[in-house]
């Protein structure tokens, strides 16, 4: 498997937010300012890579040998939830500055479907551990790219003269649609 293809495909062609519709809640929820969007991206990137490694090891060394593949959903979500808690506790102790920056976003990540989605996709695509890590990292970059671009657009959108009924979420969704259209230009790249 070509790592370059994985990276390019995850960031641009099959962008996790705009093409695969994973992680839409933070995409709409924390995209009002670029600074919060960047904070969220940092937290997601951190947990996404970590969660993919841990869930991969669980799938390969526990679920597969014991024939418990049907427990995938339950075990993955529990692992991710406890991982998020663990990261929060460790971060608080080790790096208070980083905790300050990412702290409020961490609890939200448990229910971020992008994390569970990437963990499951890594297994479904039959990547090995290194490919999985590259896949998770590039998806995190793709998530950040979409989120920060969208936040930039929304910062400008506030000042626009939008028709009354379309204010807020509707115009944000339509803007996201146009952004997704722009990303469709990348299809066929790999």
């Amino acid at each position: 498997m070509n790592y370059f293809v994985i990276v390019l495909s995850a960031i641009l062609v099959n962008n996790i937010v705009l093409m695969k519709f994973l992680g839409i809640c933070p995409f709409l929820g924390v995209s009002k300012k670029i600074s919060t969007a960047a904070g969220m991206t940092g937290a997601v990137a951190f947990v996404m890579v970590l969660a993919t490694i841990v869930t991969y090891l669980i799938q390969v060394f526990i679920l597969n040998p014991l024939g418990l593949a049907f427990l995938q959903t339950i075990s993955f979500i529990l692992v991710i939830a406890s991982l998020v808690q663990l990261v929060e506790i460790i971060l608080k102790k080790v790096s208070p500055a980083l905790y300050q920056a990412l702290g409020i976003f961490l609890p939200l990540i448990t229910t971020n479907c992008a994390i569970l989605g990437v963990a499951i996709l890594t297994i479904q695509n039959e990547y090995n551990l290194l490919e999985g890590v590259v896949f998770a990292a590039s998806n995190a970059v793709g998530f950040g790219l979409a989120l920060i671009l969208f936040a930039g657009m929304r910062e400008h959108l506030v000042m626009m003269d939008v028709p009354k009924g379309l204010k807020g979420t509707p115009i944000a969704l339509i803007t996201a649609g146009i952004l997704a259209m722009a990303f469709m230009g990348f299809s066929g790249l790999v």
Partner: protein
Amino acid sequence: MNQWKIFSKGFIKENPVFILLLGMCPTLGVTSSAINGLGMGLATTFVLVMSNLVVSLVKSQIPDKVRIPSFIVIIATFVTIVQLVMQAYVPTLYKSLGLFIPLIVVNCIVLGRAEAFASKNTVGSSLIDGLGMGLGFSFALTLLGAVREILGSGKIFDIVIYSEDYVTLLFVLPPGAFIVLGYLIYVINKIKKA
């Protein structure tokens, strides 16, 4: 009357998709056709009703501190059941919904109703609440899927309405999901105010 209110609030007044904006990932991800939307909606409804039922049954047994993890385990159990049943009986639908079936587990509506309603109310009300919210979710997904299918492939529930020569393919592609949902929320807001 009270029970009717709990049941009916999920359709328009507190519609999980159009008003509360919960569960957006499956809403946008699977609604390229009406049948996919309906299938996803009903799968979520089942999980919602069953998890609401179980959560309201065991709510007094669960210590407050491990409340959320316990809810997640309950929800994940029913998601796994749905996953296995759909794989066995409706394999084509299962394939087209793909990743979004296991992702019901992180759908904010399910955990949201367990936490906000079922953990505080009686078994009966929780059942009705789950059913109402689930059907409201299914209604939203089917509507979105139907609009996209009509505009994007000239069909509804696979019944041809007009020739494929006149369709706007964009609406069944990812950008169409965002745009149609944006305008639908606008329309629903107008109706709600009127």
